[in-house]
């Protein structure tokens, strides 16, 4: 790891100020992506601004079916939240299957979506839930937030503060985990609203990162059954092809994971 200078922010305003002190500064939350990247010398921020002690990023609140999760909430806290489980158990299930227990004790929701790894789990949930990403400057709908591989709509010094969404009537998530890394080879998040609206978000499979699948959405709006998902053939063009699996293999996984996600909902 190259040398860096550590700063601990005590508030959002303090974090933005510290970040502004150097062009090459970066925020760090759980560090479960950034520290390994720095160890590999694939990132070399001159300064690290630690967000883990910023109170404004903490806390989960559920009002009726409206959910707000602070960006600094760890995967473990989401996985074990009785409040979230009561309205959206699919999100707890998703958080409980990120990495391993030690990673879940540190890694945060805000860090995961700001990073937008094409194989990360939370981006699928945010897109599938139609969540709103609340930053220190504005509110960004998930549909406009995830813009490409490791790319988001965030400005350089913008901080994810929280995410909000209305819990859908039914939701499910199923991932085919890479046997070595546990990241998603393909993960599908499905959600159905009381008004019949359906969203299907796919992670791990897209060459440009997380995306919605219109064909699956239409089929599941017609019939919320694994069979309806099974009838949808997914086009492999635009899907990721790498040593772990071809685009055709992933296209088939999208259908299979969608079936399982509906069955689990």
């Amino acid at each position, binding site marked *: 790891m190259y040398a860096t200078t550590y700063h601990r922010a005590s508030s959002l305003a303090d974090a933005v100020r510290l970040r502004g002190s150097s062009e090459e500064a970066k925020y760090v939350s759980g560090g479960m992506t950034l520290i390994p990247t720095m160890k590999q010398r694939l990132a070399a921020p001159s300064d690290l601004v630690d967000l883990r002690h910023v109170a404004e990023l903490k806390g989960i609140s559920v009002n009726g079916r409206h959910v707000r999760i602070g960006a600094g909430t760890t995967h473990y806290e989401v996985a074990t939240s009785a409040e979230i489980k009561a309205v959206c158990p699919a999100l707890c299930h998703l958080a409980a299957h990120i990495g391993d227990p030690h*990673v879940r004790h540190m890694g945060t929701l805000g860090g995961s979506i700001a990073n937008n790894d094409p194989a990360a789990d939370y981006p699928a949930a945010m897109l599938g839930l139609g969540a709103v990403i609340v930053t220190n400057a504005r509110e960004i709908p998930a549909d406009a937030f995830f813009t490409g591989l490791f790319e988001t709509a965030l400005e350089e010094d913008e901080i994810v503060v929280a995410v909000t969404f209305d819990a859908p009537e039914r939701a499910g998530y199923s991932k085919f985990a890479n046997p070595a890394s546990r990241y998603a080879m393909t993960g599908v998040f499905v959600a159905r609203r009381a008004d019949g609206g359906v969203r299907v978000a796919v992670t791990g499979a897209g060459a440009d990162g997380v995306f919605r699948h219109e064909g699956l959405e239409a089929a599941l709006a017609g019939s919320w059954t694994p069979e309806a998902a099974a009838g949808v053939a997914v086009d492999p063009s635009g899907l990721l092809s790498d040593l772990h699996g071809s685009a055709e293999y992933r296209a088939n996984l999208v259908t299979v994971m969608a079936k399982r996600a509906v069955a689990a909902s």
Partner: protein
Amino acid sequence: MSRVAMTVNGRKVSRECEDRTLLVHFLRDHLSLTGTHVGCDTSQCGACVVYMDGRAVKSCTILAAQAAGSEILTIEGLAAGGDLHPVQAAFKANHGLQCGFCTPGMVMSAVDMINRYGADLDEKTVRENLEGNICRCTGYHNIVKAILAAAQEMGAAGRQAAE
């Protein structure tokens, strides 16, 4: 360079170190607590697992500076004097180790999962919770056996056992 202070195994410590110093190197090189191991450079093997403020974490993926002000428990702080912690005793009794390289991390992870699940632990849960701990020797069977035996023994007291 910064001065980093924290509590390690109940003892207040403070050392000068570079900001890029990883917690595991702070423990091993600055405090000579070499029980915590480094088994990989990809944050995957779990040989480096310690407790930070009551939760198992990978000390190879946390800067000492990030851990400043926290309470750290390492494998050296687990046994009460000369008496092995029940999880250590169970690893010994069940042959839960061969070369022993992964063992400090395995034991810390085991204490953490018993802390979270108590005597309700079953084999499937143990295996899922070992996702972040790699062992090249044992094939895991005896590690799982040891953890289940320790969970049984620690029983209802399990949830407080890590304190």
